[in-house]
């Protein structure tokens, strides 16, 4: 049977992608950020999964205001890097895993989560920047990826509790798949940032780190944080953090297993407008 081996959490700031694409990763501004992901790259080499289930949000790229799915699962064979207005990022096409994606859709929808099934979609920096941070800039991504897009652009976005419960349903789906695949689940976005209005530039290092502590040791408490706390304390775009709860809800301890092992933790301010957080949790 398939098994979730680990969960990875990271911010997905577009400027990180731009720094990689324009060869600025050794600029003094970016050195501390990329240094924080060096252990993650080594970990990824040593713990290569068969599939990554990657939770992210689309930033008005694949989804305009014509259709706004709350949860969308990518079931296609491949996903092209999107042109977000600056031309497509020069990164590999993302290869999907249609069989596992279809299995997860079937299982999770029967567990009362009404996913939108997407068979054609370009993927933006929300998905490709985390892949760069963990895998570098290879000619091909190391394994198939199932994109899972969450609406965090138009309010109301799903609650933290809803995301956490969905993670548990995704875990059940993955662990009922017959092939013995090693699957990682990634939650991306956040941490504190606000990109709009006179309050733009808000960063809350203390709140971010306290939230990381809670996510690691008491995920049920993290799932209880209401939307308004994210917005007030971590900025209007800090709400993206609800996506981390999908990955956290899929870990063994939530289903009665042992607590996960913290393999890596990193926090850095700033990347452009954003407080960058990163965790790797392994199932024991």
């Amino acid at each position: 049977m398939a098994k979730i081996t680990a969960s990875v959490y990271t911010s997905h700031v577009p400027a990180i992608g731009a720094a990689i694409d324009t060869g600025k990763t050794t600029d003094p501004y970016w050195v501390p950020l990329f240094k924080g992901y060096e252990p993650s790259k080594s970990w990824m080499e040593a713990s290569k999964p068969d599939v990554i289930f990657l939770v992210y949000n689309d930033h008005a790229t694949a989804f305009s205001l014509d259709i706004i799915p709350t949860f969308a699962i990518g079931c296609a064979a491949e996903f092209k890097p999107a042109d977000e207005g600056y031309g497509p990022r020069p990164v590999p096409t993302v290869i999907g895993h249609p069989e596992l994606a279809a299995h997860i859709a079937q299982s999770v929808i029967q567990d009362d989560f009404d996913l939108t099934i997407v068979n054609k979609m370009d993927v933006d920096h929300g998905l490709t920047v985390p892949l760069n941070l963990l895998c570098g800039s290879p000619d091909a991504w190391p394994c198939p990826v199932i994109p899972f897009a969450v609406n965090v652009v138009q309010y109301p976005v799903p609650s933290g509790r809803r995301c956490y419960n969905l993670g548990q349903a995704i875990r059940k789906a993955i662990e009922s798949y017959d092939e013995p695949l090693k699957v990682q689940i990634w939650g991306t976005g956040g941490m504190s940032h606000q990109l709009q209005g006179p309050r733009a530039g808000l960063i809350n290092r203390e709140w971010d780190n306290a939230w990381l502590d809670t996510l690691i040791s008491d995920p049920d408490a993290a799932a209880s944080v209401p939307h308004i706390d994210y917005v007030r304390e971590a900025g209007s775009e800090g709400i993206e953090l609800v996506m981390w709860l999908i990955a956290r809800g899929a870990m063994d301890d939530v289903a009665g297993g042992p607590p996960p092992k913290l393999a890596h933790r990193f926090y850095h301010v700033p990347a452009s407008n954003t407080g960058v957080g990163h965790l790797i949790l392994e199932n024991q």
Partner: protein
Amino acid sequence: MALEKPYKDIPGTTIFDADQSRLGYHLNQFCMSLMKAANRERFKAGERAYLDEWPMTEEQKQAVLARDLNRCIALGGNIYFLAKIGATDGKSFQQMAGSMTGMSEAAYRDMMINGGRSVEGNRYIGEDGDAQAHRQPQGKKD
């Protein structure tokens, strides 16, 4: 019955909810059209004529022409959509975000390098933080 909107008491912040989305539908879809290189070229060649192809309000069109992102947001724009205008203009996300504060580009960048804007005084309308209405625009000379 009016629905609860607890986020209305945060200074300098507009939450893009279903009501804002309804107001801004055509404005945001205009922005979305700039994802295509050919449309970016046509927009740059004649902004007013291009905007007139969209059923936007005159106020929305003026806000776009003036690149007044705060006004665009008040009229239903969403920052991820408005960012397509910035991309067309060759601006980074940081330049766009900074433009909404009244700070110079350098002052905004320095604020971010020094750890970003503090939440202190900026949680609730009526406090005295730098995002409060009575302290706008920021970066003005005393």
